[in-house]
């Protein structure tokens, strides 16, 4: 693989969006950055701006208000991009799926590449999801 393709897999910059989660999954996501888990080993950096992000990590359920924002953030990310839905709520709406103001999981609004189950999801699982997503990206890049 060429240097440019390799570098796309070695430098996933991650944007974290809380779509209405109870903050459990968010705490676990941010725990990945601590010395114990140290995601920077994989070149992962937490960025706050979709224009710089490669991976969108979304926690929580989608409702009509934040669906617009989620879509907007997704559209502002440069291609190629990955979306990871974290936690039961993000995957499917979790226990809130039947609430009148909840649309459901992230995939109701934007395409999701990797699902991370759990309530809350474990940091190891989140990191594994990023690596899985990158593997998927690698497949796409190799095919192209």
């Amino acid at each position, binding site marked *: 693989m060429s*240097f*440019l*393709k*390799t*570098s*796309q897999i*070695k*430098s996933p*910059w991650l944007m974290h969006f809380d779509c209405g989660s109870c903050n459990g999954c968010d705490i676990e996501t941010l725990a990945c*950055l601590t*010395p114990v888990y*140290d995601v*920077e*080993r*994989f*070149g992962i*950096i*937490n*960025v*706050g*701006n979709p*224009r*710089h992000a*490669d991976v969108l990590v979304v926690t929580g359920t989608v409702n009509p208000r934040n669906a617009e924002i989620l879509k907007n953030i997704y559209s502002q*990310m*440069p*291609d*190629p991009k990955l979306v990871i839905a974290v936690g039961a709520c993000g995957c499917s709406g979790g226990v809130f799926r039947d609430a009148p103001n909840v649309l459901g999981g992230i995939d109701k609004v934007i395409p999701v590449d990797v699902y991370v189950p759990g309530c809350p999801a474990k940091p190891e699982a989140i990191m594994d999801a990023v690596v899985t997503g990158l593997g998927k990206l690698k497949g796409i890049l190799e095919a192209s």
Partner: protein
Amino acid sequence: MNLTTFYLAVAGLILAPLVGGLVAGVDRVLTARMQSRMGPPLLQPFYDVGKLWSKVIAPASHWQGLFVRWALVASLASDVLLAAGADVLMCFFVQAASASFVALGAFCGSSPYSKLGAQRELFQLLAYEPVFLVAILCMAKVSGGFDAYSFMASDQPLLYKMPLIVPGLLFVVLVKLRKSPFDISGSHHMHQEVVRGVYTDYAGRDFALLEIAHWADVTVVLWICSFLWATSPLAMVVTAFLFLFAALVIDNISARLTWRHMLKVVAPISLVLATANLLWLYME
């Protein structure tokens, strides 16, 4: 211009950004080790730039591409000037032009964060530029010329005659490397100041080029700092590394200041120290 100068200039053009990239890599590994983490591979900054280069995204303004390239050309030109042993003062001005282009491009962007970053970038420029200039003037006074060769020609380290310049130069290094406590207009990597301020609207290829320009800038700044102990090439590298290391330590033990604090307290103090040193050189 003779042939040696030409070779040196070409070497500066190619090597300076590479060195800057390596410095960024060392910076990230060292920072991680200081925080008892593993950290990314040494070449991570190069992967980042490669990744940014292959991203596809619409620009935030029609003008940003232009300003990014101008910034890159200016940064590389300042490296080339230094490598060719030209006038350090002019090299500094060319480097400052690069910073102005970055700010201008950010002003042209559409996001309010970008403009906020641009304003802060300008205030940072205001804070470090005079100190840096005075430091160069001190070096010129001691070595008797404004060109890089005379800075490197003295038998005795310039540091002996200008100890009060060190805090000022350290301040400049912290600002230029976008390190805490002066990462006000956009931070280095994970600590983002208001979603990365001046860089907010730059993305994809433009951002990759801007990162290379930043590496070139870092090389210039550390290079000028290394003139303080320019008795041998090794001594210069060690001096530059010491400045880098000090900046990393400060980055890891300090919290971000506000731009007001920087402009009202830190910049005047370092400028007064530097000026005192300059005056003292004249009194000798």
